[in-house]
C-alpha cells in the first residue's frame, strides 16, 4: 500500500532537518512510541504500541535512516516485531522543500507491509491505521517543532 502527504512547517529547512534526526523529537512525535534509543546517527531501537483494528500490540522496532541527502531528503525504514501479533515493516521517503522566510514543506511517500495476526484480521484496516499514524506523526512533529528550539528563528 502506498500513502503520502504533505505538510507546511513554519520552520527553516535546516532546522526541520535537524529535528528529523533528533531521537528525542522523533520519540515524542511517533504515535505510541514509549522508548527510542539512538544506536548511531542513522539507527534507532524503539518500543511502540500500536493498534490496528482489533489487534493491539507492542512492537520492538528497528528504525534506520538511509539515502541521506541533508537537508533535502532521507528514507526512513522501520521494522517492528509485535510478538504473537505479527510484524510490520515500512519505509517512508521524506523530502524537505525550502519555502524561504523560515518555512518549509515536508513531503512523504510511505509504504507499509504487515504480517501475522495483524495481516490476518486487520489487513483491511492497515491502510487507515498507517495513514492515521503518519498523519499523527507529522502533526506531532510540527507541534513539537513549534515549541522547541529548532522552530525558533
Amino acid at each position, binding site marked *: 500500500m502506498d500513502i503520502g502527504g504533505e505538510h507546511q512547517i513554519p520552520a527553516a529547512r535546516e532546522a526541520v532537518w535537524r529535528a528529523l534526526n533528533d531521537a528525542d523529537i522523533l520519540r515524542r512525535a511517533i504515535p505510541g512510541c514509549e522508548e527510542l534509543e539512538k544506536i548511531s546517527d542513522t539507527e534507532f531501537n524503539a518500543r511502540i504500541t500500536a493498534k490496528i483494528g482489533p489487534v493491539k500490540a507492542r512492537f520492538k522496532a528497528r528504525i534506520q535512516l538511509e539515502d541521506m541527502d541533508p537537508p533535502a531528503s532521507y528514507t526512513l525504514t522501520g521494522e517492528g516485531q509485535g510478538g504473537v501479533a505479527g510484524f510490520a515493516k515500512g519505509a517512508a521517503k521524506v523530502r524537505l522543500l525550502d519555502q524561504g522566510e523560515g518555512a518549509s514543506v515536508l513531503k512523504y511517500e510511505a509504504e507499509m507491509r504487515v504480517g501475522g495476526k495483524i*495481516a490476518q484480521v486487520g489487513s483491511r484496516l492497515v491502510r487507515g491505521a498507517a495513514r492515521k499514524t503518519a498523519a499523527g506523526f507529522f502533526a506531532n512533529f510540527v507541534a513539537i517543532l513549534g515549541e522547541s528550539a529548532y522552530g525558533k528563528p
Partner: protein
Amino acid sequence: MNANTTTTSGIGGSVRRREDSRFLQGRGRYTDDINIAGQAYAVFVRSPHAHARINGIDTAAATAAEGVVAVFTAEHTKDIGGVPTGWQVHSKDGEPMAEPKHPVLAEGMARHVGDPVAMVIAATRRQARDAAELVAVDYDPQPAVVDMKAALAADSTKVHADLPGNLCYDWELGDKAAVDEAFAGAAHVTKLDLVNNRLIPNAVEPRCAIGDFDSVSGEHTLYTTSQNPHVIRLLMGAFVLSIPEHKLRVVAPDVGGGFGSKIFHYAEEALVTWAAAQVKKPVKWTAERSESFMSDAHGRDHVTHAELALDADGKFLALRCSTLANMGAYLSTFAPCIPTYLHGTLLAGQYVTPAIYCEVKAVFTNTVPVDAYRGAGRPEATFILERIVDQAAAETGVDPAELRRRNLIKPEQFPYQTPVALQYDTGNYEATLDQALKAADYAGFESRRKQSAAAGKLRGVGLSCYIEACGIAPSNVVGSLGARAGLYEAATIRVNPTGSVVVLTGSHAHGQGHETTFAQVVSDMLGIDYDAVEIVHGDTAKVPFGMGTYGSRSIAVGGAAIAKAVDKIIAKGKKIAAHLLEAGEGDIVFENGAFKVAGTDREKSFGDIALTAYVPHQYPLESLEPGLEETAFYDPANFTYPAGTYVCEVEVDPDTGRVTVASFHASDDFGNLINPMIVEGQVHGGLAQGIGQALLENCVYDADGQLLSGSYMDYCMPRADDLPSFQVDTTVTACTHNPLGVKGCGEAGAIGAPPALINAVVNALNGGGHPIAHLDMPATPQKVWAAMQSN
C-alpha cells in the same frame, strides 16, 4: 423425499435423532468441555512469516514468567518423528513423490504463516498466552512463494531446500495417445481455463486436544477433535511418538463438525500427548479461531486447463485436463491422493467419454497444507466437467440439458468401465435428470426469465450432473494406488444377556447422526426395539478398530460392517436356537426378531437366545462358545457411486453484480436410504458449502504469503440470509455390492452445487447481453459486475 410422514424406526424411517436430546440441552461433551484435574494449558507461538529462517529462539523470559510450566521448541522435539502422510503417489516417470519432513515444531525454518515454532505450557490459559508473547524468535525472513506457476519455475524460491521447482509429483492417468487421436478427428473442441478456489473448512468447533499420561501404567491418552480416532492412534503412535497401541488411547468425543479438516493428524495432537508425559500434567490446547484459519488444512486450490472434443452430433469423444494442485508447505495426511485418485478418476462423470487423459502437478508453496475438504477432489473434477460441458453446449448451440442427455451412460451399460480406472456398478442418470428438470420446471424457465427481466434482473439457469466415488475404499485398490493403510471398517455387536445390544463402530459421528441411523439398521435387522440398541464410537479403548468418517463412507462401509456383524450374530443365534429347538441348524430361519423352525410354529425369541448364550445351562458347549458378541471387518468390493442432477436459478442485479439464488433443486441417487430426514439434512449442508464456494468463500494470500482472509470478517461464511430454501428429492438404484444397497450422501451437495451455480451465473450474463465464457469462483458482486462491464 417425504421426511415427515414415515413413522417406522427401522430402515427407511425418518426417526428423530437421539443425539439431539443432549445437544439441545447443552449436555454435549466436546473436547474443550473436558477438563482434567491439574491440567495445564498450551499455547503455540506461530510464525508470522510465510518463510523465514529461525536464527534463534529466546525462551528465557517466557520460562521465567508466572505460572509457566515449560517452553518447548524444536530443540526439545528433535526425537519426535515428523507428521506422516498416508498416501504415496508416483510420478509419470515412476519416481515416488517428494515427501519432505513435516516437523511438529519448525526446525530452523518456518514455511507458512501459522507454522508452530514454540509451545508454551502454563498453569492457566491466560498465563500461557502472556508467556507466549515473551518468546523472542529471531526470524530472518526469506522470499516466499505463493503462486503455483511461480513455484514451478526453476529459479523459484524453494519451500524445501532440497527440492528445486517445488514439485511434489507429476502424475498422469489415462491413454494420452487415444485422447490425442480423438482430438485430431473432432468436429468441435471446447477449451476452458479454470480455478478451483481455495477454501477454509471452518467447522464451527475449533480444534482442541488434551494429552494425559499415567506414569504408573505408562498409558497415554489423547482427547481430540477428530473424525477418526483410530487413524490418529495409528499415525501418532507408530510414526510420530513411537507409542505402541496398547499404551495409547485416543478419544474423540462429540465433535462439532469436521468436513474433512478433522481427519488429519495434526502436530498439536502429538505435542500435547508428548508434553503431558514431559511435564507430568495433563496438557490442554484449544485453537482460537484465528489459529484455525492458519493451522487447519485448507481445501481445493486447483488451477486447470481442460479441453473437450465433440463429434458433429455433440457426442463427447475425449477429454483432457492439466491441473496444478497446491499442497501448501507440507504434505497433510491425505493430501497427495486428493488431486489424483479422488479427482482424475472422476473425470468421466455421468458420461460416455471414450478417452480421457489427466495430468496433475502437485506443488509446494509457502501456505498452510491443503487436504481433503468436503468432496475432496470430486468437486474439483465435477467443476471442470460440468463447466466445460456447459460451455460446449453454449458454443454448439445445443441446450445444456440436451447435450448432457445425449452423452449419459445408459442404465443398460452398467457395470460401466470408465477410461479413468473406475467401474460404476449401477445408476440411472437419465431418471435423475428427468426428475430434476421436471421438479425445477426447467421447461418454464423462459417465462421466469422474462419476469425477472421485467423487474430489471438477469435470470439464469444452471445444471450440474455430478457423480462421486464414495464408500472409501477397497483396500486392495487403494493399496495399489499408494495408500499406506487399508480403508475397511470394523464393527462389534455385543448382545447383552437381557437382549439389549451395544454396537461398537469405528465410524465416528460429528453431525451425521450415526447414533440414530446405525441403531435403525441394527434394530431393523434384529427385529428388536430401536431403544434397545446403543451405538458407541469415538474411543479406541472401547471400539476394537476403525478407519473413521470421511468420503461419505459411514453408511456404505461402516454400516456394512455393522450389517455383517449382525449377520454373524444371527448365524450364531441360529446355532443356539437349533440346539434349543432340537432342529437342524439349516432348518432355522430368523424372522421378525425370532428364530423359527421353518414351516412350524416352534420358535425362540431373540431375548431367549441372548439369555441362553450367557446362561448356558442348556447349551451346545461342545460345539459353541457361550456369549453373543461378534466383530466384523468390512472391506468394500468397489466404491459406491452416488450421482444426481442439480438445477439452480439465479438472479443477477445488473447495477451491483450481486447474485441471488432464486431456487435450488437437487435430485440425488444415494441408493437405499436408512433415514431420509438425515439424508436430506446432509444434502442441505453440502449445498450450503457448495453455494458458499461458488458465491462467497475464498481464501486469499498476498504475494508475501500473508493470509488476508484470516477471520470471519474477511472469509465470507454462508449465513442464513445468503441461502435459499432447498428443494431436494431422490431416485433409487441400490448399490449392488454392499449389504444395505446404500451409497452415501455426505458430500453430494458440495460436489454438485458449484458448477450449477456458475453455469447459472454465466447463463444469466449471456442471456442479459453480456457474453462471457467463464467466471471463476467465488462469483462476488465485484467480479460479476466487472465481467458485465468488460463487454
